[in-house]
């Protein structure tokens, strides 16, 4: 058989399989439709329908609940504090690993360790450090900085509890951002940064004017995922603060698991969804690349 004839048979064979990709994606589409799309519709029905009538009663119960303001405020605070700090940390980690330092492999291996740790585990880990008879007090006392254990997780001091949850979340979820940044950095040719250096740009200028603009797609993806996941802060808050602090997700969970009211729980989750979508839209809009700046 000649090469041309071979090509022709191959072409025929491939054409015969035109429906194949659709067959291959069918199981995924069906599964997501049944166990993702449909429950999503049900969630909105739970939030807006009671006993066969349209209603906003669940939302009224949610807003009038004593914990609502606290939960909303604490959730927004967590998102607003965790995400910016962790982006700076992740950028530092990614730049260090991307630089040609000897031993960078070891640092990378260490930085990504918490990548798969759950928020419940992270909460318990940081509790062992911050609890009254814990490791932070031990170290401070051995250094002679305190002479009796300090209470770091004082339920009456909201700022300390916020700090505790923030540091546990920074520890756990910064690795995720770093991996995305590092993947992005590896796609930026070294020459750009080197050229800027030749022209006398310092480290801060290089990061701000050269690296960050080129890292914009990675920034966007990391921001989208991290903001959406931060709005769902749940087990880490329960593990560290007990019932002293509450978020939108812990409220949704309590209304469902403790008060057996799926309608109010669904209202909370609808609120989380709306907040996630609004901030996702904001991220996409704020980090949009004007057409004239596009490289490709």
């Amino acid at each position: 058989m000649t090469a041309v004839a071979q090509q022709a048979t191959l072409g025929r064979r491939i054409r015969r399989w035109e429906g194949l990709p659709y067959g291959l994606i069918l199981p995924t589409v069906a599964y997501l439709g049944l166990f993702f799309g449909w429950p999503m519709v049900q969630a909105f029905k739970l939030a807006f329908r009671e006993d066969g009538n349209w209603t906003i009663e669940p939302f009224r119960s949610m807003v009038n609940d004593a914990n609502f303001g606290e939960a909303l405020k604490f959730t927004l605070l967590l998102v607003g504090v965790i995400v910016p700090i962790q982006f700076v940390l992740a950028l530092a980690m990614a730049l260090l690993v991307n630089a040609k330092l000897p031993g960078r492999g070891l640092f990378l291996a260490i930085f990504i360790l918490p990548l798969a740790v759950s928020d419940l585990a992270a909460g318990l880990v940081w509790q062992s450090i911050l609890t009254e008879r814990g490791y932070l007090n031990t170290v401070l006392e051995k250094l002679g900085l305190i002479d009796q254990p300090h209470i770091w997780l004082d339920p009456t001091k909201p700022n300390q509890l916020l700090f505790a949850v923030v540091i546990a979340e920074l520890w756990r979820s910064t690795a995720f951002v770093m991996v995305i940044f590092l993947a992005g950095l590896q796609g930026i040719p070294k020459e750009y940064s080197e050229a800027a250096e030749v022209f006398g740009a310092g480290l801060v200028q290089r990061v701000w004017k050269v690296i960050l603009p080129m890292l914009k797609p990675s920034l966007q993806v990391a921001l989208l995922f991290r903001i959406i996941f931060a709005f769902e802060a749940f087990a880490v808050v329960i593990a560290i603060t007990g019932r002293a602090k509450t978020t939108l997700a812990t409220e949704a969970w309590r209304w469902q698991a403790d008060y057996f009211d799926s309608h109010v729980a669904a209202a909370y989750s609808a609120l989380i969804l709306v907040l996630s979508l609004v901030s996702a839209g904001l991220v996409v809009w704020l980090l949009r690349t004007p057409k004239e700046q596009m490289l490709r």
Partner: protein
Amino acid sequence: MTATRISWRPWLSRALSYATAIVLALFVLAPIYVITLAAFSSQTRVYDYPKDLLPRHLSTDTISFFIHFGGMLDALQRSVYVAAITLVLALVVGTPAGYALARFAFRGADTVRLTVVATRAFPIVILSIPLAVIFIRWGIDDTVFGVSIAHTALALPFVVLTTASVFAGVSPELEEAAMTLGCSRLTAFLRVALPLALPGLAASAIFVFIISWNEVFASSLLTLRHRTLPAEVLSLLDGAPLNFRFAGGFFLMAPSLIVILIIRRYLFSMWGRVVK
């Protein structure tokens, strides 16, 4: 004068880089070290203060107390079952879609990809509450199978995107060559593409296992008496003693560290293209 400044600067910047890297590394490592130390202290030393900072009195009592506490062993077993069923379901359903996205330029491919990314970003919080209601109606509430179904919905987008990225790394020319040599599309896939993709697929599978192992929100809403390990730990947390918390923290954390150590070589081929 200028000459000395030039020879000093690289040295200084390198020293600063290492200092920053070491501080960041300690921030990651110190909590892992102390929770391990706490989990392997003896039952009485768990409450000691100030705590021992060196591993001098190691004991497995605290871990064994945790594992034999209440229904913890059963919960552990259920967690492993749920994660295993999730892994199989998610890979069987999701891998073909990943392959299709990597190999074929078909109409609607971008829509499929975008939808999958969007579902990956949807909060599990929203999914769990209606599923809890639906599962009661179907009679699969409080079962291993029910939790696995929810976890598969959660892990499926991840599987599709990572397997697509893995198959994109296997050159299509190899399959085409096999087909010109007499393989059918199926045998070309089974004997050429699949073996080459296997390590990446395994990495993806291991990560699915840990997604399920970690998940606590859906698990604790979908179960009542038959909880998975994290759900059981969460439900016992109110007023739990320190030894329970320390051992629990270590026990939930340890598998995820091991998993990352195993699959870290494949991490970037898995996630790199997810980003784009």
